[in-house]
């Protein structure tokens, strides 16, 4: 009797352990959360683990992005004193060192900051003397993806699809037009010194005219 008492519980215990291991490899069922595509993507872009089934809201995303990511990143953007001499020496090498490229064969963009003296105020732009070269700060209207793609902070694969990613451009451009251009227009007086951070398409070669055409995301009083 004593022998049978010892043997009977040992086999089921081993069987339960090994079955447990086997079930790790071959689960009988899986629990799959009921999520919409939009909710998954929303969770991904917000970094939230809570995948609430809400549609992606480009305006809300962009406001938060501007406040929490773009503004801090602008403070750390490439300094013009490093970028401008490199660009004048060799545009291709400068692009390799400082530019961000989105996708295949796309434009390179610089995200940089600098301080310059206003030399002219035109209809759609302000010209600055920056470290001995002329750059243009746009004053609108603003089109395209320069801000979305220029900072290097946004990746198409973190969003539900191309339509949503494109909607970010429209929202970012709207914020630049509403928040940055008015400050730039107000402070742009010939002879004034302006500090800025912004994005610009990387030129393939040095042409006549401004070295860079900048979409400013921040304008401040010169230090």
């Amino acid at each position, binding site marked *: 009797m004593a022998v049978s008492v010892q043997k009977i519980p040992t086999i089921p215990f081993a069987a339960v352990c*090994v*079955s447990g*291991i086997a079930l790790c490899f071959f689960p009988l069922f899986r629990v799959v959360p009921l999520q919409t595509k939009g909710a998954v993507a929303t969770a991904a872009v917000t970094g939230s683990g809570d995948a609430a089934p809400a549609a992606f809201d480009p305006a809300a995303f962009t406001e938060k992005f501007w406040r929490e990511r773009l503004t801090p990143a602008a403070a750390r953007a490439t300094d013009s004193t490093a970028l401008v001499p490199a660009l004048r020496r060799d545009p291709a090498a400068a692009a390799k060192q400082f530019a961000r490229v989105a996708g*295949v*064969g*796309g*434009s390179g963009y610089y995200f940089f900051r600098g301080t310059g003296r206003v030399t002219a105020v035109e209809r759609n732009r302000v010209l600055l003397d920056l470290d001995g070269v002329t750059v243009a700060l746009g004053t609108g209207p603003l089109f395209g993806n320069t801000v979305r793609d220029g900072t290097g902070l946004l990746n198409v*694969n973190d969003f539900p*699809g*191309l339509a949503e990613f494109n909607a970010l451009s429209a929202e970012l451009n709207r914020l630049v037009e509403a928040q940055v251009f008015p400050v730039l227009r107000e402070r742009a007086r010939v002879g004034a010194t302006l500090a800025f951070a912004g994005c610009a398409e990387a030129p393939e070669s040095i042409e006549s005219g401004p070295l860079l055409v900048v979409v400013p995301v921040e304008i401040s009083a010169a230090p």
Partner: protein
Amino acid sequence: MITLRLIRLLVGAALAALVALPVHAAAPAAGQRVAVVISTLNNPWFVVLANTARDRAKELGYDATIFDSQNDPAKESQHFDNLIASGYAAVLFNCTDARGSIANVRRAKAAGVPVFCMDREIEANDAATSQILSDNYSGCVALGRYFVEQVGETGKYIELLGLVADTNTWNRSKGFHSVVDRFPGLKLVAQQSAEFDRAKALEVLESLLQRNPDIDAVFCGNDAMAMGAYQALLAAGKAAKVKVFGFDGADDVVKSVAEGKITATVMQFPKTMARSAAENADKYLKGERKFPQRTPVAVELVTKANVKKFGDYGRK
């Protein structure tokens, strides 16, 4: 004891299966078949996309076959049924419907057949292995800016949309309107789909011109429609006055831009997209598993000023 042996066998089989996976993934490509499923071959641009995908797959050592969906989702679905049943190893895919085609891609994925989208997006992030897509929005931002330069800040225009179920249609339209709508003097007097089709565009524009004889421009969501629109304008005696804008970079339209018949188009790079999709499929079949879901491919504005740089569906 029998139970213990059975469990050991199960665990052993599980471990063997796990060990066997990488061996299978690293198998050579020789003898494997790749399907190229294309929305339509009734448009030279898609013929270039299909042929380039097939040829690149062949260069990489696969047997490759083109399936024409003829812009019919039902035909596309049949193609997927057939290619899954026939044991194709991968699909290079240009869809007919951004949402409707998702089920086909999921069915292939469930059957272990990876799908690599080219040019046209499916609206799912977890079905295709990768999607190589033109940056249509950026292209139409550039086209919209040129449109305003050429037409001016006042005028009337018609827009011919592509297939309404294709996201390219809307990404192009939205990129264009993100610019042109900022100029209130530019009036959109009619907007209608001509389904990316040349004959349909001819027919639609002929009809729209009856009600809108005094337009200044036509914005077309692709080059086939631009050629159809140009024919309609020519027949109405308005080709010299009305500016036509297309999108694709098709050879006949690039030539028409050089001749001043079409004002501008946007060069997509179908060969780049097709080759990239085929190369991704090859990498997948050789064991690679990490692919970005979407890869945008840059496009370029083609005008009379720079048209000499372009031809044969790309840069010369």
